[in-house]
């Protein structure tokens, strides 16, 4: 009947049982799918798949895309689609690598300047959206093209291999740090999701983001500062893309123009499909995004462990995708009825 809200007041208590079960299944369809998925892989390869080491592999893969996708969900909730994450990420990582590895500036300085640069790109995106009044999808696509060009220019003037190597000592150690045996990046990812969960559900900022995405006109008429929210969303998406790209480059010891931070069809759509936002904004739950990210990471790791044939692999990926969107579509249809 209605979607679970994070707080428990005034909830209907008289829902009939079968309906409650259906509601539960649909609301938690993704979680159930994740459990089934884990069960299948665990049966097929118990000793490797179920080990702690692989658990961390799955979580590390999740963290790689998860942080950007989390901020992506925020932007989508506010009704903004950012198609420039891959290119913004690439150019940020390349500029970081240039400062850190070529100019040999200190790590902290290079990092802060690179992040400031990413923030600037986010600001340009939001300027195009707010001042020039271009839909975010188009504005970010345009800026993305420009960023890719910048990334290639910086690489080509500093390297002949298409990559800038990043093997100055402190970086790899910092990225591979473990805290009580858990990789720092994994802890960071969970921290990011927790903070965003609180932000979206328990702060005014979150309430305003949902309102802006749900009905921008209404939000404006009720005194919500829409411009500030758009700026916030796009700036943080750009910064998270930059951060993730630096992380990936640091772990891979080199930065290139193809640093994968969810291209046009990657991160944005994962966020859109799994969180349940759709692409028009106003709804969507961050915890679903997290489950979706982990679901995909388990799929990657499981199929790699089982050495699934490429044919089966692309079929399974395609079908899992279609299945996930079908479930979500049924859920939304039942909800709006």
């Amino acid at each position, binding site marked *: 009947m209605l979607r679970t809200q994070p707080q428990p007041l005034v909830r209907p208590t008289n829902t009939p049982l079968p309906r409650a079960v259906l509601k539960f299944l649909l609301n938690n369809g993704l979680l159930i799918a994740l459990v089934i998925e884990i069960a299948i892989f665990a049966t097929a390869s118990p000793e*490797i798949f179920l080990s702690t080491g*692989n658990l961390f592999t799955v979580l590390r893969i999740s963290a790689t895309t998860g942080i950007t996708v989390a901020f992506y969900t925020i932007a989508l909730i506010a009704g903004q689609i950012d198609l420039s994450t891959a290119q913004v990420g690439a150019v940020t990582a390349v500029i970081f690598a240039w400062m850190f590895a070529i100019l040999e500036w200190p790590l902290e300085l290079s990092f802060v300047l690179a992040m400031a640069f990413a923030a600037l790109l986010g600001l340009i995106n939001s300027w195009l959206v707010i001042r020039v009044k271009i839909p975010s999808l188009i504005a970010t696509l345009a800026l993305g*093209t420009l960023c890719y060009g910048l990334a290639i220019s910086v690489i080509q003037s500093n390297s*002949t291999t298409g990559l800038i190597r990043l*093997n100055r000592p402190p970086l790899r150690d910092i990225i591979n740090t473990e805290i009580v045996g858990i990789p720092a990046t994994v802890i960071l990812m969970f921290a990011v999701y927790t903070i965003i969960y609180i932000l979206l559900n328990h702060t005014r900022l979150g309430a305003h983001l949902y309102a802006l995405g749900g009905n921008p006109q209404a939000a404006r008429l009720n005194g919500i500062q829409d411009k500030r929210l758009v700026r916030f969303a796009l700036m943080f998406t750009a910064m998270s893309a930059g951060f993730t790209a630096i992380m990936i480059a640091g772990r*891979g010891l080199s930065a*290139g123009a193809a640093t994968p931070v969810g291209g046009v069809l990657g991160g944005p759509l994962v966020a859109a499909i799994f969180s349940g936002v759709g692409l028009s904004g106003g709804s969507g739950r961050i915890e679903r995004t997290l489950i979706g990210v982990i679901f995909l990471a388990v799929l990657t790791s499981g199929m790699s462990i089982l050495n699934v044939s*490429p044919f089966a*692999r692309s079929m399974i990926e395609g079908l899992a995708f279609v299945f996930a969107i079908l479930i979500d579509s049924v859920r939304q249809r039942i909800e709006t009825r």
Partner: protein
Amino acid sequence: MFIKRFMHLLFVSSMLLASAGVLAQDATTYTADEIKEASGVEQCSQLAELPKEFSEDWKLAFINPNKAQSFWGQVSVGMNAAAEFYGVEFVEMDSAGGPDVELFETLLLNQPDVVGTHNAVDYEAVAARALDENIPYIGFDNGQTEYSPYVYGIPNGIAGEAGAELLIEGVQARLDTDWKDRELFFLEFTHNGIPACVDRTGAAATAFKEHFELDDEHIIQLDLATGATEIEMMLSTLTAHPDAVFAMIPCWDGLGIAPYNAAVEAGREADIMLVTLGGDKPPADLLLTKPQGYYGYIEFQPYCEGWGWIESALAIAEGVRFAPYQARRAVTQADIEQRYAELYGAPSS
């Protein structure tokens, strides 16, 4: 000249790699003929004389970058065939185009004795991880790093130079006849986001440029990373130089064949000469049809390269000397029938 350098490199690296090796050889080792026979139509050459009884039950592990691509699909087939032949356990994973560095952690859980990945974007980090764990790492293709002493596969620079050598042969013949007194350009089809391509075609460009003493203006790099298609770039280049002739080397076969056909479509087939790198079945099929300007290819033989990786990994485990993979077999229109028959049997039509 560069052949000499190559042989030198070959020798030095063999000696280095075999420093802990056992030089003795007895009847209990496999012979080159046995390997040739076991690898079927590919007839791979033996890289290491491995004993028929291993000192331990070795376990090898490899992350294939993308088995959906025909080259890597063949590498996988060759690896599995070799592992079966030698009777060792082989763990294979497929990162399907994604980064290897995370999956590598899971690969290590199998407690392999020797590991490897494609030397793609994040291989240095993978090699560094293997070094942390004290497991020998053999990167597949491309250079050397401070994290692993083992070099395996087609060194991209050498492959590019081999391609240039073949192309020089073809172009020289044309320059003596119908290309006499024509302005000659070298076209390098590459992708600046892929380090292997930069190395490969870059080396080819340098070798070609030195041989014909061309200036920089006559070396044109057509870079896929710009977002333009290779066809678009080819056609623009053709019109920019309406009277010139072009020698072309692409990073992989398809990247050269498409622009070649675009040039045919533009009516300039007589002005181009192509040598490709890779030499899988599709380019072999095309070379059989004898296109005017498709001189030949450098055959990488992915099946044998995969087979050889297993041999080299076992050699490291056993402490036996192994020779570098020899991937510089040039195939031209002159000998394509013979080579095709060896590999794939008689052509269908």
